[in-house]
């Protein structure tokens, strides 16, 4: 039964066009965000690519500048430090070489015992569970670190290797961040300008945090030795970058959400 369609008599546009649509705000279950036009998405893509290019060009000089600044700060606080040469991908980096305190067997045992006691105290005091788990996780890492040092007698990374790991991680974050933040911004009706602002603010913030954190980490290791190295890197390293990206992103989303509320006609019907 092949249905042969007769020439259809169809109006040019079916039913009410957008011009006549009343300002009825759709229920939240029907809402969808307005899709960004091709030009807007193209602009955002170009911005991301330009920022990425800028990162590639300036990563090494910026990292070098950070290294010099960190070395200066450490020298000023009595920790002898100097940038050293290194190559990562296409970048010539200069991770800071600084001494790390050596920790004796007794000191390590004290660290280990303190961490264990800390875990027990938390289990007894029972603060709110998320806080408890966060602190216990950190203390567990400390226990593992101290135990490893007691057993093996030396850390997996010496001071210069840690410095290198840190700096290469930082550069990788700078490379990945514009792409990730840009992709996420594309999902929302941010203008190209807003997307650029979010990426640049996130990147700048991260660069400054990297520099300050770098100096802090090396200073802590110079004073306490390698026992805190694991905690510093795993909990306060790239994970912290994630927190700041989310924080900045949430601020941008709040602004967007308020804007959509004021202009209800911007909502799309399903």
């Amino acid at each position, binding site marked *: *039964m092949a249905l042969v369609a007769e020439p259809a008599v169809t109006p040019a546009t*079916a039913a009410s066009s957008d011009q006549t649509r009343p300002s009825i705000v759709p229920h939240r279950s029907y809402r969808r965000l307005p899709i960004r036009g091709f030009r807007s998405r193209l602009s955002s893509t170009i911005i991301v690519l330009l920022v990425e290019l800028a990162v590639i060009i300036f990563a090494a000089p910026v990292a070098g500048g950070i290294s010099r600044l960190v070395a200066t700060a450490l020298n000023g606080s009595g920790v002898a430090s100097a940038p050293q040469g290194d190559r990562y991908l296409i970048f010539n980096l200069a991770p800071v070489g600084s001494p790390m305190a050596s920790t004796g067997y007794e000191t390590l045992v004290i660290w280990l015992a303190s961490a264990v006691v800390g875990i027990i105290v938390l289990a007894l005091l029972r603060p709110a569970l998320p806080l408890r788990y966060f602190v216990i996780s950190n203390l567990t890492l400390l226990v593992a670190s101290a135990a490893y040092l007691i057993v093996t007698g030396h850390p997996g990374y010496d001071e210069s290797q840690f410095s290198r790991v840190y700096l290469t991680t930082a550069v990788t974050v700078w490379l990945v961040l514009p792409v990730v933040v840009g992709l996420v911004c594309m999902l929302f009706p941010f203008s190209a300008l807003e997307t650029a602002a979010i990426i640049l603010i996130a990147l700048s913030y991260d660069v400054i945090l990297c520099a300050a954190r770098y100096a802090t980490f090396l200073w802590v290791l110079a004073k306490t030795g390698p026992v805190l190295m694991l905690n510093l890197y795993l909990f306060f390293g790239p994970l912290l970058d994630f927190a700041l990206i989310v924080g900045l992103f949430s601020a941008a989303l709040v602004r967007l959400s308020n804007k959509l509320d004021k202009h209800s006609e911007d909502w799309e019907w399903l």
Partner: protein
Amino acid sequence: MLLAMACTVILAVVPFVPGAIELARPRDNRRLLIDQGYVRNPRFFGLSFRAKVAAALPAPGGVLPYRGSISLHRAESFEVRGQLRVPPGASIGGIIASLENTDIGRGAKLGDCYSRGGAIVADRASLRALACDGDVTLGEDVRIARWIDASNNMSVGERCDLGQSASADGNVLLREHCKFRRLWGRPIVTEAPHAAATITPTIEDVVVFGSRGLSLPRGTNLEQDLVVRGALQVGAQSKIRGDIKAHKSIVLHSGARIEGNVVTRQNLTVVGDVEIIGNLFVEGNIIVGSRSRIGSPDAFKSVYAAGTIQLRDRVKIFGWTVAESGGWVG
């Protein structure tokens, strides 16, 4: 060094600060509002408008015309007249109510209008909304921006645009090339002389056929629900007692009778003279051919299309019609 450490702490903490402020002094901790009393009513716009207008009407015996203000989405001027006659080409903004009949002239422009009696709207007039307690007659090329509701019957001329919702407690007669999105009527009837589609006979007329779907031949009798993960054709004069669903398009041929719901993820074509005592739920477009009937006086049903709905001549729908992307007659 102290500066570096302070910077580290501050920069690490800053992303959490707005959240901490929100926790300490909550500005947005209220629950999502669910309207516990909400009930879907196809005549919602008209009924809620009438309730607001009724509250703003002057006391009986008052001086007319009465002028005041009324708030729908915002405060607007409100005028009440005994009988409303709008001259051709006139333009009246705000909200206007008539305690008797309403006669809107050719090409006139009005905002929201309430008529306690009947309402006649001449050709090419346009209104934002109209609620009428009597019969409504729309001429040709009338444009309703938002909604129209009648407590009795509604007759709609050719090429009218019925806005977001058109509802009547009686019947709704739609002429050719009318456009709509939501319709409610008992029944909705179309008047649009139209040539029927021609059918070329094939093997599918004679046997149950499955290639990339299922084709039921002419005269099939089935008392079962039917689900096809391809396309479905139901042959002419077939009778199915059960719900039917296809993941691709459905074609119901002439004279078929379905006592059950019809659901498809794509398009539905009802060729003509088909009777469906069930709901149509279509994620694509619907074409309802001439003389088809959906629902019955005792069992109102719904015709829903996420796409468009095209109603041909002498279609009768008892109940609710929703065309998310718009519908038309013709």
